[in-house]
Every structure is written in structure tokens, then in C-alpha cells.
């Protein structure tokens, strides 16, 4: 019986494999592995928490569950922008941490074949692409595939936590 469960799980994994939710910030298009995504909601009332890094906007009430939200623009050190009705919160679950990612807008779910995905080029500027795991070609477009785990860890928030 447990075997069948595993099979189902595997199948689920399989159907999720190579599928990405794409969203845009400015002119760039990003992709997130679909397995991390739990839901997409419109922008909510955000309760601010003092003294957090600028990109952690605060917390929201997601049907009784309190989750933090992160402005991905600010995370990537881009100019902030007023939220509007196209602004979306992508709720992701990364290593059991639920967090909402605020993005300009969500585009679509894409299946990207493995051969179209390549490693990002090494940059001379050091850490500039540390959140990008892979780069995908879709038609004439390029999608930057995010390293979700890096989004949460190995960043200032954690470094600060260690110092304190």
C-alpha cells in the first residue's frame, strides 16, 4: 500500500518536473519551480514589523495563517514600485517555511525542456547572480530561474541573525 502512495508521489513529482511559474519584474522574466508554489493571491494588507530588512515588507493574514511577505524587487535591489491591481503575492513553501513573494505580475506556467536550460554565465561582479540557479530559453525570450532556497537563506537576514 505504501508503495502505491510512493508511486503517486513520484508521479506528482514527475508532473511538476520541468514546470515553472513565470513572473515579471521590470522587463525581466523570472521562473520559479512549480513545486515550491502553493498559491497566488492578490496584494493584501501588510502589517509592518519594525527593524526588518527593507525587502521584508511584514506579515499578512492568509486565512488565519500568518506568513511573512518579501518584496522581490527590493530583494533584487531594484527600484520599488507602487503596488497595483496587477501586483501579485506568490505564496511559496520552501523547506517548510511559507513566505509570500511580491511580484509585479504573474505570467504563466511553462514546461521548459531540460535541453533549453543552461547554467548562468559566471559574472565578474561577484555575487550579482547568486539568486539565479539556471537560465532558460523559451522561444526568443530568456527566463531567469530562481534559486528559491537562496532567496531565504545565505542573505542579510540570516547573517544578521547570526551576529545577534
Amino acid at each position: 500500500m505504501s508503495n502505491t502512495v510512493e508511486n503517486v508521489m513520484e508521479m506528482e513529482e514527475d508532473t511538476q518536473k520541468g514546470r515553472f511559474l513565470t513572473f515579471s519584474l521590470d522587463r525581466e522574466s523570472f521562473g520559479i519551480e512549480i513545486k515550491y508554489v502553493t498559491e497566488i493571491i492578490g496584494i493584501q494588507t501588510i502589517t509592518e514589523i519594525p527593524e526588518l530588512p527593507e525587502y521584508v515588507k511584514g506579515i499578512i493574514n492568509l486565512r488565519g495563517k500568518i506568513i511573512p511577505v518579501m518584496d522581490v524587487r527590493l530583494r533584487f535591489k531594484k527600484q520599488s514600485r507602487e503596488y497595483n491591481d496587477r501586483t501579485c503575492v506568490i505564496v511559496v513553501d520552501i523547506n517548510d517555511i511559507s513566505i509570500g513573494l511580491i511580484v509585479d505580475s504573474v505570467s504563466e506556467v511553462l514546461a521548459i525542456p531540460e535541453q533549453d536550460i543552461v547554467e548562468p554565465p559566471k559574472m565578474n561582479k561577484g555575487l550579482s547572480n547568486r539568486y539565479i540557479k539556471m537560465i532558460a530559453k523559451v522561444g526568443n525570450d530568456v527566463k531567469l530561474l530562481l534559486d528559491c532556497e537562496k532567496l531565504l537563506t545565505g542573505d542579510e537576514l540570516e547573517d544578521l541573525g547570526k551576529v545577534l
Partner: protein
Amino acid sequence: MKYSNEPMLDMFIFETTQLIEQLETAILSSEKSNCYTQAAINEIFRIMHTIKGCSAMMLLDDISSLAHAIEDLFYFLREEKPQNVDCCTLSDLVLEGVDFVKVEMEKIKNGDAADGKAYSLIDNIKAFLAVLKHSNTSGAPADTKEHNSEKWHKNCVSREAAPPSAAINFFKAVIFFEEGCEMENIRAFEVVHNLKGIADEVYHIPENITDNSKSSEIIQREGFKLYITTHYPYEQLYELLMRTVLLKKLELTEAESRDDIPALSQAAHEMCARVSEDGSPGKGGNGQREADYAEAQHVSIHNSIISVNVNKLDRLMDRIGEMVIAEAMVVQNPDLKGMQMDNFQKAAWQLNKIVGEIQDMVMSIRMVPLADTFNKMHRIVRDMCRKLDKEVELEITGEETEVDKNIIEHISDPLMHLIRNSIDHGIEPPEERKAAGKPHSGRIALEARNAGSDVLIIVKDDGRGLNRERILTKARENDLLLKPEDDMSDREIFSLIFLAGFSTKDGVSEYSGRGVGLDVVTKNIEKVGGSVQVDSVMGRGTSITMKIPLTLAIIDGMNIQVGSARYTIPIISIMQSFRPAENDIITDPDGNEMVMLRGCCYPVLRLHEHFNVRTEITEFTKGIFIMVESEHKVLCIFADELLGQQQVVIKALPAYIRSSGKTRGLAGCTLLGDGSISLIVDIAGLAGLSEPG
């Protein structure tokens, strides 16, 4: 591990932990009375038996063998009732076993491998049992008779009726059981027993299958060999034997005549003995047993208690909290404003009442008596006294007092620390006590009682008390004094012992020392929103009172507004709120703001500044002051306005936020009636921030 399955693992941990606690209690009380009663021996035997079985199922071989060894020991005690048992050593051995299992359980709980090795302990237990056996065998010969396994054993199975046909068939059967089926000899006994209805005579190798475990090895190796005479045909016998459980292989062959089978011809000369029906139900004792049974019906009533995973209760509590919020969202819905609706109000009132009742009920489910936590202290006292050569009586009162399950977990460690500290530093050695005219053995009173929405836990000893001067000296040396000494009350001075980096004893003893000061006590207690207070009289003793809230999950809160943000302050820390007159506000040359109230001066904390919130209201006369107290520190919080009082369900801030380590001043958050989030202000944290320096 065999069962990574969570509920099963949870159950195993839960049950074993419970049994171990029971065991410990039984041992400690036996030790106190310096004898193991028959009832205690039975109980310990049964507990070890259960632990043995369960841990074996979990493939925890060391725990299982250890439990087996102790079980054997108590089996001997139970059956032989030996005299002159060294109670002390016995208790030590079993307690050592208790500790071993505790450590292993802790590892399992934390998801680590239970890799402790118990063999040396098992050897000690076995050695103890061997000595016991040796000194208690008064020449009674042990059962050393070797059974010749090659000798044929005959079971003449007589049936009620005579054989239906005179034709008798002779069979030879060899049965192999599945590997690892255990107790092969009893499996063989089962086979012979099952043949009763069908066979006239049964002979088997090995001969002795009832109480010779060696026969198990032979059966494993060579199979169980049977010679059977029956009037039934091959098919029927085959079918019957095939129904043997855990059968691996059956060889059944028919012989032409009795003479083909040596055993049968040999046996022909022997008498037929009936298989004794040992253990058939005694008809005589029925009446009595039925009576016992009827009596036991009510005994089993208190078994209708079920154990529930705390996580489930936490989730239930969470849901209830949301229900409270949802109720407020409906009843206080802005759409309803200004409507005349008597029936709605009536129904809403009813709903409010039921929701309140459910909330109380769920709270009460989570309440656990302190008894288990308190009883653990007996062991601490025992071990400490032994090592330090002191005598201490532990007196427990109010152990039935109930506290929220989540809080109880935070009490155990501080309590242990206080008790250890009391025995180590408080209680004097017997000679010193005698010289001081005190009773020979020291006394520690552990008491719990309710006080409003708090529970007081008091640890009181009749030891030498705290030395005010020595504490002050020590505090001076370590630069722990924040106030002029003359301004400090005794209580404040005594409280210094709870500061980190304070330890009056130069020699760190094995117990209360450990390089950890009493500051862990305050830390733990403050974590659950409690406080600690010390009273002491030189030469008479010390009394330490821990004040802890009944529950963590729901508090009465005052909601306040600052700019667009809302905050909740626990009512319990609010002393009053007020609007000061302009000239009551003072600013010192450093820019620190203070407010005068009834001749006293209190520091002011502007919440909008502290939490960096934009607000229109920055003038003191336009907003409101809320005077709060924590740990004898008073602080006036300046906010825009009060929104009202409400019971709120505390939710933790998301782990991601907490991991920033920047949430000082915030105790969590809660959901308000309109679905928005209010941040719960941590008064102790804020009061700490307002400290000078």
C-alpha cells in the same frame, strides 16, 4: 527503526515515558520504605515486560534486553521471595536502567539514533541476580536433568469415541517452521495438541517439547518429527497438518505397518498415557470469577481516558481562536451598523456564549496537573542527597494544580535547578544542622497554588538562607549592581542571584554548578511570561516563588492604535491609562522624556518612535499614556488611542521573521475582528530596553 510512522512512534515514546515514570515512582517509594512489596515487584515486573515487548517491536534491542534483564530479576523476586535483598543496590540498578531508557527516549524524540549500549548494565543486573540466586538456593537442586532428545516421546491421544474403523494408518511427518517464529517447542506442542481430535497415538522427536528450550534448536535444525497412528486417511491428516501456523515445510509419508516405524513398535509395549488436559477451565471457580468480573466493570470506567497529541490540541486551539475572530467579524460587521435587529442580537449573544464555552473547554483540555513534574523531583532529591551526604525530606503540596501543557514543559528544568540549588547551597550538612539546633534532616517544601490567572510554584527550604552581604560583595565584584546599594530592598538584593554571571560558590559543584547559574531559571520562566521572586531569612531558609500564567494561548489584551498600525498590550501588565497635563511632562538634558504622576516620575516610550510608525499624533496631550509594569519596572507607553479590550489568541510570528532576531519588544501577533493583524507588545522586552545605560 521499524516504525518511522509518526503516530506509532509518538505512541511508543509517550507510553514508554509514562511507564518509566511509573517505574521510577515505584522504585523511589519502595526505597523509602526500604522494602519492595509484592505489589511493587509485580508492577515493576509488568512494566519491564511491556517495555521489553514494545521496544523489541521497535527494534530497540538494547532497551529490550535491558528490560528483559530487569524483568528476569523481578521474576525471581516475585517467584522466590528471597530474603536479605540489598534494596539499595537493587534500586540503584533499576534506576540506572530507568536513566538509560530515558536517555534513549530523548534521542528518539529528537530523531537521533538510539545508539546507547546497555550491556555493562545488563551484566551488572545479571550478576546481581546470580548472587541473589546463589545465596537463596537452600540446596534445592535446579532442573538440570538432561533430556535425551533422541528418545521417543509418546502421546497417546485417546478420543471420546472409539475409532470409526478398525483400519489404522501409520504416518511419519516432519515439520519445519518459518525461521524466526520463536518458541518452536511450543509450536510443536500446538501441533500435537491439534492432532488430538484425529490421531490415536502421537510420538515425536524431540521428546520433551514442553519445558526444554533446547528442543527449539533441534526443531529449527532438524524439524519436528512425528509418528502418528490414526484411522483417518492421509488427506485428512495432511490437511490438518497443513493448517499448522508458520509452517515452512511439511513432509508426510504413510507407512505400511506399525513395524516400519521403529518408534511405534517400540512404543507398542508401553502404556498409553492420556494427554493431560492441563489448564482446562475449572468449572468450580466460575461463580467467583463472574463476581470479580462484575466488580471490575466499574474499574474499567477510568480507562475511558484517551491520550491526544498536543499538536492536535494546539491546532484545535488555533481553530477556536479563528472561530472567536470569525464570530467578531460577523457580529461586529460594519455592514450591520445602525440596523435595528433584535433577533440578530439575541442570536449573536447565544453564539458568543457558546463560543466562549467551547474556548474554556478546550483550554481545560490542555490543562495538566503539576503532579508528574513535581514527582520527578523525588529522584533529584534522592540522587543529590546520596552524593552530597545530606538528608532532605521533600514535601509536596498542591500537585493537583493544573497548568497549560505548553507551560509545564518550561517548568521542569527551572524547578530541578532550584531544588538542586537548595540541597547544594541551602540545606546544611547534618552536623551543622544539629549544631544550629535544627532537625537532623533538612526539609524542602514544594508547593503549587492558584492565584487568579496565575499559578504560584514555591520552593521553600529550611537551610541556611541567603547571605545578604555576600551577595552584595559578589554583585559588586561582577559589576552587577544597577542601583545604589542603599536603595535596594532585600528582595531586590536576593534577586541578584538570578542574574547571569552570578554564582556565590567558588567551587562549582557537580550539581547546581555545571557552569550554569540560576539565571536559566529566570530565563525559562520569563519565556512563558512568568516571574521569579526570592525571600530569605539568614539561618532560617529561603523561599523562591515562581509566578506563571495558567495559559499562553489566550490573553486579555488592550488593543491600541498607532498611526495605521494596531498593537495589543496584555491587560495583565497594564496599571492604568491616562492623559497627562502638559506640565507633567519632563525632558531631561539628554532628551529622555519622563512623565510625573502622583509625585512619581516614569520613563516614557513613544511607541511610534520605537516601532518606527508614521502617525499624526506626536504631541503627548493628543494621545494617550498606558502605564505598564514588568518585573517591578514601570514604563509609560505613548500611543494614539485605545481601541478596546478583547481576548486575543496569541500566534507566533513566522519563523522567518523571528530568525532575524530583531523582534525584541514583540511577543507575537494576533488577528483582530476585521481580519487584520495586531502585533502583541512584549512589555518585559520594552521595559528592559528602557533601562538606563
